[in-house]
């Protein structure tokens, strides 16, 4: 039974869906889009400045929840590395017939490599399926926050939000 962000430590589907940062199902059907999982009124707004298309708005006061303009968002992923809360993801439910892709910030060493098969985890950190690493992007503007994109079975696109940290021996 999910008990909500302040008890479990991660947002429930319900909390996410009623927040202004969560895209609609119609938008998901049209390709990659940012998923802003920031559902508490905290004084924070770097995401607003990060997006070149002004698709995320916080405004005044700074404690407003970030609002995603899903029409403006192209799913480019620039905001993912800029959010200090590591709370923004890009989900592409149209990646292929059977698979969706999920991009998430990853600040651990070692990094996975392209093509690696990794253990995909949900918001609770539980391994839910395998994923295949599609890309790792870590340009200078990311300021050392790598963004990893993995492909997972389509049905897992709403669950998967990261991978199990790689320790010692590499998987795959």
């Amino acid at each position, binding site marked *: 039974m999910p008990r909500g962000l302040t008890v479990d430590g991660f947002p429930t589907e319900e909390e996410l869906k009623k927040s202004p940062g969560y895209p609609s199902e119609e938008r998901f059907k049209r390709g990659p889009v940012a998923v802003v999982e920031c559902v508490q009124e905290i004084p924070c707004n770097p995401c607003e400045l990060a997006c070149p298309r002004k698709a995320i708005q916080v405004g005044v006061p700074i404690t407003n929840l970030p609002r995603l303009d899903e029409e403006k968002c192209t799913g480019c992923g620039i905001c993912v590395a800029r959010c200090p809360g590591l709370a923004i993801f890009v989900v592409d439910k149209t990646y292929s017939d059977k698979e969706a892709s999920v991009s998430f910030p990853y*600040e*651990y*060493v*070692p990094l996975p490599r392209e093509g690696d098969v990794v253990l995909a985890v949900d918001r609770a950190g539980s391994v839910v399926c395998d994923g295949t690493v599609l890309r790792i992007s870590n340009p200078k503007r990311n300021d*050392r926050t*790598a963004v990893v994109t993995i492909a997972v079975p389509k049905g897992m696109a709403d669950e998967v939000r990261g991978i199990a940290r790689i320790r010692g021996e590499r998987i795959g």
Partner: protein
Amino acid sequence: MIQALASTAERDKEGDESGMRVTEHPILGGLTPGRVVQIVVDGKKIEAREGETIAAALLAAGIRVNRYTSKRHEPRGLFCGIGQCTDCVMVVNGVPNVRTCVTPVASGMVIETQHGSGGRAESDEEV
């Protein structure tokens, strides 16, 4: 507990006998080689990185007890890390009550576990 002392040659190779050094880091990058200095802790030679605190050098060598209290001889180690609590004090070059968490190592430093107030004549005072 305290690591068995490896031979100097082995330590040179490893540079990190207890595996406590953070050699790779996603944000801070790889640990820069830095100058190594020798210090002596309770009669044993250990290697430290120039500029680091005594407490850090000891933790890297797997040593966590810095002193024993005078009355009950209880062990104490790093606690506040900012020079406030005095839990980490040791005898350094013969001087007791040196806060190891804020004092940098120096080549040839002689460090001893402190017992009680660290003075020659063991007093019963709490440090």
